[in-house]
């Protein structure tokens, strides 16, 4: 493959790297052995939050290092740890009301509505949208909008009101999952059935079956159609 080398600056230090790399790969290419600032390498864990600017442009940009290609004259730094306030609560002791979220995170009410958070989110989440939903007490909506949050904290790093909204959103999702989402009757029923031993005999029969017979049963099992 034709390697096009470009100049980048890692915490001020100059390096030449192939332009096909992600920021994470470029750091490693430059010789960094990463301990913090890397996790899944796949855009799922939020460990690799990175801040950068391009020489000549005053604007700060934010990205996941594992998901973003390097650009010429990138000046970058990782944010391997961002101190974020995280109150302790026990979900099992909550009732699942919107007021509880605001009791635990009262500062949510101080949002300026500047929308900087939305602009900084690498997951393209409508962050202000879920912050507003929390303020309005709409937990299902906050849970829904924030669902794809990978907890990278980039929206926190830029918030002039210093809100740790991703943690508040996580609380909303947990409240929704436990208290507000409708429960499955079939799940409850199946747990009862297992407890009363409804399937014990059927499983024992399979367990004791000679291998050749078991293979036949498997090959002939009926398969639920797609639609």
């Amino acid at each position, binding site marked *: 493959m034709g390697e096009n080398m470009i100049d980048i600056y890692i915490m001020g230090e100059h390096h030449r790297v192939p332009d*096909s790399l992600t920021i994470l790969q470029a750091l490693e290419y430059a010789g960094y052995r990463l301990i913090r600032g890397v996790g899944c390498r796949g*855009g*799922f*864990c939020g460990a690799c939050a990175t801040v950068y600017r391009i020489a000549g442009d005053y604007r700060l940009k934010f990205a996941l290092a594992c998901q973003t290609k390097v650009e010429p004259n990138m000046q970058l730094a990782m944010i391997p740890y961002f101190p974020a306030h995280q109150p302790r609560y026990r979900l099992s002791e909550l009732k699942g009301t919107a007021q509880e979220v605001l009791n635990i995170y009262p500062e949510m009410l101080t949002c300026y509505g500047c929308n900087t958070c939305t602009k900084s989110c690498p997951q393209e989440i409508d962050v202000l949208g879920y912050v507003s939903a929390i303020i309005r007490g709409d937990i299902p909506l906050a849970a829904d909008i924030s669902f794809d949050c990978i*907890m990278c904290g980039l929206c926190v790093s830029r918030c002039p009101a210093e809100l740790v909204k991703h943690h508040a959103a996580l609380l909303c999702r947990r409240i929704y999952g*436990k208290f507000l989402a409708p429960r499955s009757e079939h799940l409850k029923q199946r747990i009862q059935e*297992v407890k009363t031993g409804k399937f014990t005999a059927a499983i024992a029969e399979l367990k004791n079956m000679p291998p050749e017979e078991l293979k036949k049963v498997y*090959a002939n099992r009926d398969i639920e159609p797609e639609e």
Partner: protein
Amino acid sequence: MAYPSPLNELATRVAQTRPERLKQSFPRLNAEEKNKLLHEYHPDYRTDTFSTLRVGPNAGDRTPRELAILLEGESLLKETSLSINQPDYDCDVLVIGGGGAGCAAALIADDLGAKVIVATKLRLGDANTMMAQGGIQAADKDNDSPALHYLDVLGGGHFANTPELVETLVTDAPEAIQWLEDLGVMFDKNPDGSMKTIHGGGTSRKRMHTARDYTGAEIMRTLRDELKSRPQITVLEFSPAIELLTDSNGTVTGAVLLNLNLSGNALSPNYHYTIVRAKTVVIATGGSGRLHYQGFPTSNHYGATGDGLVLAYRAGARLAFIDTMQYHPTGVAYPQQIIGQLVTEKVRSLGAQLLNVDGQQFIFPLETRDVVASAIIRECQKGKGVVTPGNISGVWLDTPMIEILRGPGTVKRELPAMVRQFARFGIELDKEPILVYPTLHYQNGGVAIDPDCRTNVPFLFVAGEASGGVHGRNRLMGNSLLDVIVFGRRAGNAAAQTARTRTANLELTLKHLEKWDQELQKNNLAPVTKSPLILPDYTKKEV
């Protein structure tokens, strides 16, 4: 179109064969055809890339060379003058690994009143569990039963699985789902509360529960949040275990952790160790994809280097099924920057087909993973693959087909993570097919356990991907997240109960290492390396 020129033209062939494929349903293979395909093309059946272990409880067994070197390695503690008599921490249950299995074990042990410490290599929750997209199985629908689930698991595992473990997996499953719901996990549901479920490769019923395509992330962030809400649990991050501690009888009494933050480069001479004395130890260190067996790319987390296997093996634990790895059929083959990352099986569950360079189907897309992976490797070896600018071969996965089969908007709604992943590189999943090739995904085997996660080493428990036996020679999608929760909980329970039977006055030694060294010497083995590996090294100037 974001594809460069030759790929672009090839992609149009895919669009051309679409109307014809809409009418076609590719036949499933029979048992004989599957066997033949596996033997000819599956990486597990190669001989040149395997070694036979020469020492330890599994001497005589074959395993990929990369793992054999580590299993036969020598301790990082050799030639250090570490004083282990003064523990930094004391606990009932030490959980090694902060992924799904580790967190589940810690929570249950804590519920039982045990003093719990979780030691993990990177941040809590930085784990394969976080990356699981596809879903979690449980037979809780009316048309389904744990017995059908049992049959599917065994068939998927080529009937080699340990039956008792499978039975435990499928019968504990509904309760595992309920436990997660009670912790606040948001499963996809219908308005009446019934679970939305889909098929996975090898399932006879739609029993895959999902949380969009962030199922593992949703489970992991919930478990992590719950763990953090319990201040009585001590969490030691950036603290990988590098050796177990034992007493003179060879039973486990704790572990030595390495403080990565303070030790800097793992090769630096100035190690900072932490000694934990524990009545019971649960190993939940996950898989080993980052060992890149046979040079494969991997879908795995950065820390998935098989450390738990090395620690347990040296302490005398027997391993099971370490000659079989799972190569997920659909890893990204293009773009270069995300090679090896996972394209979740859900994409095929939703109807995407696999096509060769001519735009023709060559395999039923929902055969078990090993079969599909073998078929893709065959297609590429026959020259029917699509060669990318990075000079690797792949096949098409026709994602726009999903929109035709299930209605416009389905791709964006059901696969937000995938859409985002590809959009970052200019590829629109709902309009363009993508290129895939098998990626190293899962360690089918691991430390042999019983249904309570006990190993043959007293007071040592193992749960999750680090254990072996549940999945036999091949795991079905959605059974790993389930395994992690079911056996994580069981390990926590058994470890906490067992800890009650032990005094706090435990002896801390490294005598098992002396024994290990003697065995190496007896067999005239000079270890190739020290182990565990802890982190892969990508600093080499290779791209």
